[in-house]
Every structure is written in structure tokens, then in C-alpha cells.
């Protein structure tokens, strides 16, 4: 029997200035499944994932999480929905003014009334799950890239979320560390029974961790299927991407507007060049 639909994205549109980054995205993710969204740089993968977790509001379309439509919720209700999620950011996004254990235990601080010692104990346990020992008192700036990602993952799983989002988890890591992260993602799925959505352009990683793969191109999902189905896809765009060829239907053009890692929700941006200096 197929598991119920956990997340449903219906006809999603998102514009930045005059550039349409998402143009009618349709996606379904089932409970407990590991969905991987692949696509080139600037194709809108990060924007999609940020819309799903409510960090950005789309301009058109709907997103359903457990049947609840989230794009029109007020901030307080959206905050409740977000408690179901955990997110691993591309560069970790660890809070650099806090130690590692304070980072990992951050969710605990505001949602429970545990003592510092208790939180440190839980944080240490979560770190051990990810193979990290004796780093609880270090600062994020003292960690390597791979360690930062693992700490970030520990932070995301501490509140035991139902859905995990991974933003390019293996980008910037050496092949061995990348494989370790892949293994961890699979382990999270099996041990914690979470639903996960990963965005990446690392095909090795995608094949290893995905139940299904979806390709995002020019703001639309052009194909969805199991890793086998994608490998044997008849779509030339998909084939060009998964084989990593610069020749083919996808042209190497600079996207007219690359969404910056974090875009505050501002309207009426057309009067600003972004370079105002008083």
C-alpha cells in the first residue's frame, strides 16, 4: 500500500524582480520517502525548498503539508508547522556566537524547560549519533566543513522532526566525507523514519539516497522517477544533466538573477538597485 502524501506542491510560481524562478512546480512527496530534487545552479531548487518550509512565500500556487495549506498561514501558525521540519543549510548556518552544544541544543532551549546540563547531555548524544565526539565546547569557526555539516544535521534532528530538508548536503566536501554524509542521510531515513527532501546536483549522492528523483529545469519539474527510471530517461535534458555534458539542450547562460542565499521578504523592489550607500 502506498504511504500517504506528506507534502504536496501545486502549481507554484515565484518571481524575483521580473525573473520567474519557479513557473508552475508540481511535486508530491510521500511519507517516509526520500525525494531528491536535482537541477542546475540557479534553477530554483533552493527557492523551492525555502517555499516548502515557509521561509519564502510563493507568488502563486499552493503547498500542502499533511493536508494543511501553508502559503497563506499567519506567522504564528506557520511557526507551528515549522516544528515538523528540520533543515540542513548549504553552509551549515551554525550560530557563530555559540558553542557546538549550544547550537545543537538550540531548539530545546525555547521549547522545553531543561537545565543547561540536561541540554548538553542530549546534544552530546545527538552528536555521537553522527560520529562526532569531544567537540561540544568548540566554536563553529574551529570546525572543518564536514564537521560543520554534521553539527548542523545534529541540530536539525534534535527536535525529532517528521520532515528533513537538505540543501546541497555534499557540496564542497571531499568524496569520502560526501559518502559519509550520504550514509547519514540514509540512516536518518531508516532510523528516524523521516520524510526527506534533498536538493543537490551531485548525482552519485542522488542515486545513493533517493527513493525518487525529480528534475527541476527552467522553473518546472520535468521528470520524476526512481533512480533507475531517471538513469534510463528518454528526456534529452535529463540525460544531459545526469551525464554531466556541457553540450545539449541545456545552454550555459547566466541566469539573469541568481537568488541570494537569503532574500528578505520585500515587495516593490524595483526601485532599489541594492547598492544604496548613504
Amino acid at each position: 500500500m502506498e504511504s500517504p502524501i506528506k507534502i504536496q506542491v501545486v502549481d507554484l510560481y515565484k518571481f524575483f524582480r521580473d525573473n520567474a524562478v519557479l513557473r508552475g512546480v508540481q511535486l508530491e512527496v510521500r511519507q517516509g520517502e526520500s525525494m531528491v530534487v536535482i537541477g542546475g545552479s540557479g534553477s530554483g531548487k533552493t527557492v523551492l525548498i525555502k517555499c516548502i518550509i515557509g521561509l519564502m512565500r510563493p507568488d502563486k500556487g499552493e503547498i500542502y503539508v499533511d493536508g494543511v495549506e501553508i502559503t497563506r498561514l499567519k506567522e504564528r501558525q506557520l511557526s507551528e508547522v515549522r516544528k515538523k521540519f528540520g533543515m540542513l543549510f548549504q553552509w551549515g548556518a551554525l550560530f557563530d556566537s555559540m558553542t557546538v552544544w549550544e547550537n545543537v541544543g538550540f531548539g530545546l532551549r525555547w521549547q522545553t524547560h531543561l537545565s543547561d546540563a540536561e541540554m548538553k547531555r542530549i546534544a552530546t548524544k545527538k552528536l555521537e549519533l553522527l560520529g562526532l565526539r569531544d567537540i561540544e565546547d568548540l566554536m563553529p569557526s574551529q570546525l572543518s566543513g564536514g564537521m560543520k555539516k554534521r553539527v548542523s544535521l545534529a541540530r536539525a534532528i534534535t527536535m525529532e522532526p517528521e520532515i528533513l530538508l537538505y540543501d546541497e548536503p555534499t557540496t564542497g566536501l571531499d568524496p569520502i566525507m560526501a559518502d559519509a554524509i550520504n550514509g547519514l542521510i540514509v540512516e536518518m531515513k531508516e532510523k528516524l523514519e523521516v520524510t526527506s527532501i534533498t536538493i543537490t546536483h551531485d548525482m552519485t549522492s542522488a542515486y545513493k539516497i533517493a527513493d525518487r528523483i525529480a528534475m527541476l529545469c527552467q522553473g518546472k519539474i520535468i521528470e520524476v522517477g526512481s533512480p533507475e527510471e531517471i538513469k534510463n530517461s528518454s528526456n534529452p535534458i535529463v540525460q544531459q544533466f545526469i551525464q554531466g555534458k556541457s553540450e545539449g539542450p541545456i545552454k550555459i547562460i547566466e541566469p539573469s538573477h541568481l537568488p541570494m542565499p537569503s532574500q528578505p521578504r520585500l515587495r516593490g523592489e524595483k526601485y532599489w538597485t541594492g547598492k544604496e550607500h548613504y
Partner: protein
Amino acid sequence: MNLFRWIGIYSLRFIEEAGRIIILFAQTLGWVFRPPLQGREILKQMEEVGVRSFPVVVITAAFTGMVLALQSFTGFKRFNAESMVGTVVALSVTRELGPVLTGLMVSGRVGSAMAAELGTMRVTEQIDALYTLATNPIKYLIVPRFLAAIIMVPILVIFADVIGILGGYLVSVEILGTNPTLYARRTWDFLEMNDVFTGLLKALFFGMIMATISCYQGFSAKGGAEGVGRATTNAVVLSSLCILISNYFITAFLF
């Protein structure tokens, strides 16, 4: 570019920016009273705003009081009013120079730090991370800074007032040879509690202005290191300008 278009664009930008700052201000106020109270964060920020700015404020106030005494003496001598220097120093420092100069120095120091820190957090996705951990960044980051500013800036101004008047005393008595008792009497004679309180009220507003504008600039930083740098500069310049402009209106209102 067409003049009208230019005026139009800049007016619209100004109004939009002002609007966003006011919205952030309203949101901040909304979050002040919602639990949890975050005592630890507030105390940390109070130390940053108040304790760390203390040396700067004291030095500024001292030298301001000193030069004020010097200048008014020179001016007043021309019409035989040298004995009024004490009064002038006391009134100027408590009503105007104490709050305004403290406001400007703290804007430079603390405002830039707030904008830089929040701006860096914004461009490294730490603020997004806060949302994903079910924490509202306005509550967690801005409210402590805001409260710290409105508590500590008036306190700093109290110190500035005292040191400024003492500076004036020092110069008048030691350098200009005024009679100390006379000077002290003149300081107290015409000083009313109202003067001190209007100064402190202005300080409160200046603290609010600095915190809101600097946090807004940090929060809306875009584009990496350059964006953070821009946010920091804009925070200081805008805070300083708004302090000076609102200074007139607040003073006129309380007049």
C-alpha cells in the same frame, strides 16, 4: 534622467524604507511583551550597549563640558556675563549636548555593531536557521537589543550630564579662575529637574531610533560582505541623521 522621475523614485524609496522601518518597530514592540522573557539575552546586550560604551561617553562628555565652559566664557565676557557660565553649561549639557552627543557616539559604536552582527547572520543564513528552529528572529535578536538600548542610553546620559558639568567646573575654576562656590551656585540656581528629564526622555527616543534603524539595516542586508558593509555604514549614517532631526522635533514638542 528626467527630474520628475528622479524625484519620484527617491520619494518612493524614502517612503518605502521609512515604512519598512516602522513595520519592524511595530513588530518589535509586539514581541516585547510575549514570553519567554529572555533575561540572559537582554543582560548581555545591556552590557554591550551600556558598559562597553561607557568610556567613550565619559570622554566625550568631559571634553564637551570643558570646551563649552571655555567658549561661553569667551563669549559672555563680551557683555560682562561671565558669571553665567555655570548655568549655561548645566542647561546645555542636560538639555541638549548630553543626550545628543551620547546618542551619536552610541550610534556609531553600538549601531554599527548591531548592523554588522545581524547583517552577517542574515547573509550566512543564520536568521533562516532560526525560523527553522521555530524561533522568531525578531523576538530572539531584535527585542533584547531594543530593550538594552532604551534602558542603557538614558543611564549613559545621566553619567554624561554629571561628567559634562564637572568638566565645565574644572575648566572654569582651575583654568579660568572662577570662584568655585559661585560656579556651583550658578549651576544649581537655574537648573530645573525638568531640564534633566527632558534630556533623559530624548535619550530614550534616541536609543529607540538607533536600535530600530541599526537592526533593520542588519536584517535587510543582502549580498555577502559588501552588503554587510553597506548595512553597517547606512545604519550609522541614518541613525545619526534621524537622531539629529528628531532632536529638533522632540525638543520643540517639549518646549
